[in-house]
């Protein structure tokens, strides 16, 4: 070890990271680079939707019904305006609605996963660390919930929440209810993985040492165990993100998700499929392709992440 040689010059954390194994794995994997690029492009497009979108699809004043059903890249027969990806029945620019829909899809997906993560990590950590009946109760609830398909759980929660919110708030609340519903249907995975990893970590001697020096349970869980169980969580979070986006789209497609006033990709697909057989294929196809590309890219990224973070799989 370095006893006589001077310590290497301190370098920026970013440079250090770039030299690291993780970044090296990333640079070596074309799948990772492509899927990461796709995801980043979509995230940026979603964030800057108001700047990028040529039209504001939710401003009724700017809509012209005469523009309805314009084909992609063709001037409209009545107004002569050209829309890249065509328009829907109400003359809304499909490209713009996709950008805004992407926004809602990504936001709902990310927030739902974030919610599921916080809930799942907390419950999993506590279950494993405390043990006894606390663990039994938490994990049995998780087991029971696993026996239902996640989408059913989400629909149930969504339905109940919708039933108890007053009609005038329903549209505003829909997004948040959606987040909670998807999050509640998804926490189990996080809890299980965190519990498993915690059971391993809590018997390691550094945790014993922390107990010995008198750190409280909370400090040990947060400072010592949590960082050591996070890497599998990161992987599940990525894969869950794809699943949550799809779940949101499914709910919206079934008509119980994002309201038509704030359409997500799923809502757009639902609207679009009504026109599929009357020849206006673009209203369905473009949102569907966007959803497909997004879910695929996120999934591939998660897959790669799992391999990169788990040296045993290399």
């Amino acid at each position, binding site marked *: *070890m*370095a*006893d006589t040689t001077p*310590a290497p010059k301190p370098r920026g954390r970013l440079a250090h990271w770039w030299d690291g194994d993780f970044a090296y794995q990333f640079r070596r994997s074309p799948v990772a680079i492509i899927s990461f690029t796709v995801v980043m492009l979509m995230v940026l497009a979603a964030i800057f939707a108001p700047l990028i979108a040529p039209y504001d699809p939710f401003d009724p004043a700017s809509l012209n019904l005469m523009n309805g059903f314009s084909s992609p890249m063709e001037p409209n027969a009545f107004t002569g305006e050209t829309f890249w990806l065509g328009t829907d029945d109400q003359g809304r620019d499909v490209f713009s609605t996709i950008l805004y829909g992407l926004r809602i899809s990504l936001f709902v997906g990310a927030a739902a996963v974030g919610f599921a993560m916080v809930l799942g990590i907390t419950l999993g950590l506590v279950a494993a660390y405390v043990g006894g009946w606390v663990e039994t109760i938490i994990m049995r609830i998780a087991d029971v919930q696993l026996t239902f398909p996640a989408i059913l759980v989400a629909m149930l929660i969504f339905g109940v929440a919708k039933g108890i919110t007053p009609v005038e708030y329903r549209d505003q609340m829909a997004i948040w209810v959606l987040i909670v519903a998807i999050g509640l249907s998804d926490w189990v995975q996080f809890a299980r993985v965190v519990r498993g990893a915690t059971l391993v970590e809590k018997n*390691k*001697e*550094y945790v*014993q*040492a*922390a*107990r*010995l*020096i*008198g*750190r*409280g349970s909370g400090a040990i869980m947060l*400072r*010592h165990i949590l*960082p*050591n169980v996070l890497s599998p969580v990161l992987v599940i979070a990525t894969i869950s993100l794809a699943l949550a986006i799809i779940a949101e789209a499914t709910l919206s497609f079934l008509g119980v998700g994002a309201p038509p006033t704030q359409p997500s990709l799923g809502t757009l697909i639902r609207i679009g499929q009504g026109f599929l057989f009357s020849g206006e294929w673009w209203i369905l196809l473009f949102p569907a392709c966007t959803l497909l590309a997004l879910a695929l890219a996120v999934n591939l990224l998660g897959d790669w992440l799992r391999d990169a973070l788990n040296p045993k799989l290399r």
Partner: protein
Amino acid sequence: MSEAVLSIRNLTVEIPTRGGILRPVDQINYDINRGEILGIVGESGAGKSMAGNAVIGLLNRPAKITGGEIWLNGTRIDQLEGEDMRRLRGKHIGMVFQDPLTSLNPLLRIGDQLTETMLEHLDISRDKARKRAAAALDEVGIPAAAQRLDSYPHEFSGGMRQRVVIALALCAEPSLIIADEPTTALDVSVQAQIIALLKRLCRDRGTAVMLITHDMGVIAETADRVAVMYAGRLAELGNVRDVVTHPEHPYTDGLMGSTPLASKGLKRLRQISGSMPRLTAMPEGCAFHPRCEFAQDICRAEPRPKLNGGRSACHFPIQQPAEETA
């Protein structure tokens, strides 16, 4: 006695199981004085680590102390709970674990782990804690200590990590260090360094050390006194020199006979036939009698012999050669 840092009186640890109550530690007694290294030897499962864990209150359920007393610096600690125990054990007892690979948190810098202990127990600022952490690393022989504070555990070798762990145990200046097989995971040359380090620190600071190991060589090298455990009980307790050269208990004698020591010449090593009784099937009388070559009827019939202040718990201690006793 007044000098004793740690006194253990009739300590008993029990584990209730479906098959009955197991007693991995059965009424053991010993003291450790300031600046003294007490070696605890015995084969696997003899209750060495259980006794150590009982002292620091890290027994895992369902094991618990069911009898006896533990005194640390004149305070009885076996009945302390929660907050009191936390404060006390972190401050007065340091622990060196067996495996330096897992006894450091892989995701925390060395400096953070060292200061964590000090900030928890000593009323000092973060800066000062860092300075002391660097001093502690320096003391255990880590070069460029101040710079290494920002290193992660994986950047150290096994031997250095064990040094860091020792620094960790030392940094709150405890009066007792429990070292549970501190050298088992290390190679021989590093073992020697770690042992020398423990010895020096113990001498310089007057820290008492409870050295748990199954390596007679390490004990002979390091300890001042040695306690031999067998099946949860103390078989023999005495000065290292006496125990090593003239074991009284047949078990100790067997242990010595099976340890290669250069001083004994190159004889063929003896072995103790059989294996230690399982805790579920403890024999009547002396626990060692099924394996003992000197066993008589009294060993099977009488309740187990106790140490009662003497050196060995045996009805027929091996007599020392006449010329030595004279």
